[in-house]
């Protein structure tokens, strides 16, 4: 076994550095793409959920059930289930795509819930006023509800996205070459696992900490949300340090 200094100098070589950077990029891409898609889908689901027509009742019921289910299944199980189902169906997808689909499913469910809480924070009188003024449904959402719900939505949405950078570590179990998997490969190449996992912890920290600081700052600037936080189940990311300080 090499000594610690030898290992460190080897690690600083061009090959391992690019390997590490590539892996870190995969982690970021997984989290960012998953959350962007989740943001859009979650917004759409929240919009459908606040409609009242009888026509959409089955769709609403289905969405509620799906969102509730997805939020009660661990990410690890979702990952495995997505992988085996997709492979069972016979679609040939890369591990990265499979992991991305699983990430999208989970983030859609959580962000739909965050958006719903935000929409509920808008006073009913505002909505009635908009209806009296003959606003269309999209005008109501984009001109009245979204600007007010934003304050309530943004902080938990932000900390949720930050928490997703960490959760993608589980995708290494499928074989997606992201940071955690890169670490495993380096360990099989003979580096000390203490050193490598310690380094990886630092890299995750370096990615997640600036973002969570940014989220905390955003929240302070937006001021205290007017609505009470939803007591229904949300990830603890919605209640991190910065939020409470």
């Amino acid at each position: 076994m090499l000594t610690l200094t030898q290992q460190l100098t080897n690690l600083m070589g061009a090959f391992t550095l690019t390997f590490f950077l590539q892996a870190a990029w995969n982690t970021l891409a997984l989290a960012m793409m998953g959350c962007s898609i989740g943001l859009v889908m979650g917004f759409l689901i929240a919009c459908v959920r606040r409609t009242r027509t009888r026509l959409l009742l089955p769709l609403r019921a289905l969405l509620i059930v799906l969102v509730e289910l997805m939020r009660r299944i661990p990410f690890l199980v979702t990952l495995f289930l997505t992988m085996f189902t997709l492979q069972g169906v016979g679609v040939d997808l890369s591990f990265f795509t499979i992991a991305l689909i699983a990430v999208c499913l989970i983030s859609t469910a959580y962000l739909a819930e965050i958006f719903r809480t935000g929409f509920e924070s808008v006073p009913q009188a505002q909505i009635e006023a908009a209806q009296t003024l003959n606003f269309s449904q999209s005008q109501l959402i984009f001109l009245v509800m979204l600007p007010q719900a934003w304050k309530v939505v943004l902080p938990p949405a932000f900390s949720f996205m930050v928490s997703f950078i960490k959760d993608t570590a589980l995708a290494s179990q499928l074989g997606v070459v992201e940071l955690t998997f890169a670490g495993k490969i380096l360990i099989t190449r003979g580096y000390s696992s203490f050193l490598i996992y310690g380094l990886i912890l630092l890299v995750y920290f370096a990615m997640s900490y600036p973002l969570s600081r940014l989220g905390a700052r955003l929240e302070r600037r937006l001021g205290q949300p007017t609505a009470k936080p939803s007591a229904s189940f949300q990830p603890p990311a919605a209640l991190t340090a910065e939020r409470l300080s």
Partner: protein
Amino acid sequence: MHYTFQFGEILKHWPDLLSGALVSLLVAFIAFWLGCLIGLAGALAQQHASIWLRRLVRGYVVFFTNTPSLIQIFVLFYGLPDVGIVLSPMTAVLIGLSLNAGAYLTDIMRSGLVSVKKAELEAAATLNMSAWQSFRYVTLPHLAKTIYPLLSNFFIWIVLGSSIGGLFGVNELAGQAIEISSTSMRSIEAFTVTAGIYVVLTFIASAFLYAVGYWGFRVRARFI
């Protein structure tokens, strides 16, 4: 797609799945209470301790909330043997989850401590209560009531989070699912059933926590 579902193959293993579910709950329960102790100590330290201890606690919280719990346990389980400390899978998972939970719970507890009004503490001091008495009879009831919804959310989150124990060979629900799927080759069914059990498990836990909150702490929160 030519795939015949055979859920019978999985349901045969129901004793394993049931014991797995119980182990999951147990792991979550232990990690939650250890985390609560760490959290309470951390929150009290942040309010009353010296500046260095406060900084230390702050560093602990920031570090553990910004890194994945999976890698934290990796360091404990695969990293520590390099330094000569060998932990069993269960111990490593429990320590990792507790430390991780402790970091989040420090913040939750602190938000509760902040919500206790200064006037009430002064009133307690006027009544000549000791520090312990004012903590026990003034601070703690406030704390329990304000942070109860957050704590029950957190417990559910730990039940889900304990699933990573399966990757280290702890026989909890996800671990059992991985084992059953690799022995029976019925992966889709195994993980579908497991997902179903997790849903039922967390629903029961939510309902129970809701009832305790409603009758015990007068917390009227949304259930779903």
